């Protein structure tokens, strides 16, 4: 990957930067349904795509948004959709099935926090499938990830999801949309354009394992097996960043915008002499299990923490990675602001540093202010 053109930096909202990056990557079709904090991505694409001869449809539901993208992808165009938690839940039937149809969909998930980690990495759809999930830590990385997403989607003919959040979508950063160059990919000779209709060699884009009469068909089981054997190959796309792990006694794992806060807190704790390191999964799937295992297996490591804005989802992958080499503690928590859209009270460097230090010093984790009043109390009949 290398930057080929450099333009001047301008102050730009994350959503617009992501939209412009999509266009730079050759995306020419987008369909979406408004939902905070994804809405602005849709707004910018609605304005920008027609300028380059593309199409953006304000779909009547998320079900239709993903269906429209499906059709555009089948013609070989670069196409995308996106939403937020609930909207993506609605799209799950299509997400799993178009993975079987090997359509290179790019999904912009501007999540409300990190409670959709399972949705993104496990999916709520049926069958055996995986999506590559990229989790940028800021707008600058988001611009690169969007372009990478379109490349990887075509490279593997598999959906790629960008896991963003309120901060990624709404923060203004001084950035330039640098076009990233990727190795050339094969022509999409599988795509439909009608030209082979009536020739006896017409094409079919399908998830069903069926084929045109006279051509070998995989069948349902064959198709499932075919996809199943592609999954481990896609694992080579794993991407991870880590810091201060060599001599670390404590390792913290975090992703997305919160990881940037964690990195900052750890840099400060390092200055104060605490031997703490971090691992930041850049791809949530494939998850960097090997990197987490190596970090946890460091000579001085005594404990591993997972910081995330949820009730504890990432922590399950961290445990798999650590593989029992050290105790794993969840040090994050549910965190949204009063509107339910934003990142909430826990995304605070001081609070994060406090929790990391408590973990590091084997103290009890400090209480998160305001949490107690909502804690579920066990009822008589449940005891």
């Amino acid at each position, binding site marked *: 990957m290398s930057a080929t053109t450099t333009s001047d930096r301008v102050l730009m909202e994350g959503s617009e930067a992501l939209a412009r990056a999509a266009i730079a990557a050759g995306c020419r079709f987008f369909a979406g349904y408004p939902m905070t904090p994804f809405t602005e991505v849709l707004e910018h694409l609605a304005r920008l795509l027609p300028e380059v001869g593309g199409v953006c449809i304000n779909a009547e539901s998320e079900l239709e948004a993903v269906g429209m993208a499906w*059709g555009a992808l089948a013609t070989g165009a670069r196409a995308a959709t996106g939403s937020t938690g609930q909207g993506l839940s609605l799209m799950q039937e299509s997400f799993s099935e178009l993975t079987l149809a090997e359509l290179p969909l790019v999904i912009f998930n501007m999540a409300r926090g990190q409670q959709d980690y399972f949705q993104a990495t496990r999916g709520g759809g049926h069958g055996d499938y995986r999506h590559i999930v990229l989790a940028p830590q800021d707008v600058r990385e988001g611009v690169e990830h969007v372009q990478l997403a379109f490349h990887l989607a075509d490279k593997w003919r598999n959906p790629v999801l960008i896991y963003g959040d309120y901060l990624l979508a709404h923060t203004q950063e001084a950035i330039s949309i640098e076009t990233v160059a990727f190795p050339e990919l094969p022509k999409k000779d599988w795509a439909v354009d009608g030209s082979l209709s009536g020739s006896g060699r017409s094409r079919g884009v399908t998830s069903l394992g069926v084929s045109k009469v006279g051509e070998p068909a995989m069948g349902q089981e064959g198709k499932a097996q075919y996809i199943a054997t592609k999954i481990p190959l896609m694992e080579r796309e794993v991407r991870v960043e880590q810091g201060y792990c060599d001599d670390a006694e404590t390792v913290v794992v975090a992703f997305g915008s919160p990881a940037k806060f964690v990195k900052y807190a750890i840099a400060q704790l390092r200055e104060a002499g605490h031997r703490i390191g971090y691992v930041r999964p850049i791809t949530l799937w494939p998850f960097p299990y090997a990197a987490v295992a190596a970090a946890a297996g460091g000579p001085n490591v005594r404990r591993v923490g997972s910081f995330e804005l949820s009730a504890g989802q990432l922590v399950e992958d961290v445990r798999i990675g650590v593989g029992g080499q050290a105790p794993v503690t969840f040090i994050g928590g549910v965190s949204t602001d009063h509107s339910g859209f934003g990142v909430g009270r826990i995304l605070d460097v001081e609070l994060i540093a406090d929790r990391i230090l408590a973990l590091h010093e084997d103290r009890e984790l400090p209480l998160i202010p305001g949490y107690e009043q909502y804690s579920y109390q066990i009822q008589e009949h449940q005891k």
Partner: protein
Amino acid sequence: MSIIDTSSAPTVPARKVEALKPDLLLTQEHHMCPGCGEPLAVRQFLETIEELGVATRTIAVAGIGCYTSFSGSMDVDLVQALHGRAPSVATGVKRMLPDSLVFTLQGDGDMVNEGLQEVLHTAARGEKVTCILLNNGVFGETGGHMTATSVIGQRTKNSLDGRDAEYHGYPILIGDLIAQLQGASYVARGSVHNAGSVARTRKMFKRAFESQLRGEGFTFVEVLTMCPTGWFVPTADGPTYMQETLGEVHIMGELKAEGRVRTTEELHAENVAKQRELDEQIARGGIEK
């Protein structure tokens, strides 16, 4: 009774069944039940595409139902959609390839149950695609269950004593809903229960495709098709059963053409008037029955 002259070879040579299949079918074989109406409808639109000479820019989007088995045998570029989702997929295809002829192949379960909002919004947006509905009033594929187009009194696997309006609600006349929408340029309801209706349906396909190719708007052709298996009637009774049940409610005719909207009720009234006229003529001894 005429006697076949065997003294010389017939002027029209014998043809194999294979030679009678539409060119846009890869095989004459299909996996439908005996007496099924769906292959009849498929033949009509495929031959219409051949006739219009637009095969090499035709793209099909198939829904999920018994007709899905034609996904593999139709010799047209095809995108397989999920149950109910063909109209949105067709939208994406057409927006990327505006010069192509795009049609969906759907059933009543697929289109009127699972995907009702898709077809309505696609029509309202005036997408230049043709949605084809094979309406047999049942989920044929799952074994004969009630759909949103099953008529009052129709017996299905989950309305054993017949569809009861009070308990099951009323059927949807989908063509009427679509015809109301400004984005729709052509809306028609045909049938394949006899030779006359097949010929009329063929014309409807032609008008719909031509309207799409002229870029006029969303086009829609519904075809009533026999499903003796899903109706639990003997194969040979299919056409009559259909005429007497579905055919009495989902009346054949053009619901929107050249800007004129006619409701199913109006089509029905026209049919009744025509019948009355005929009856009167017969009574006057004007024509023989």
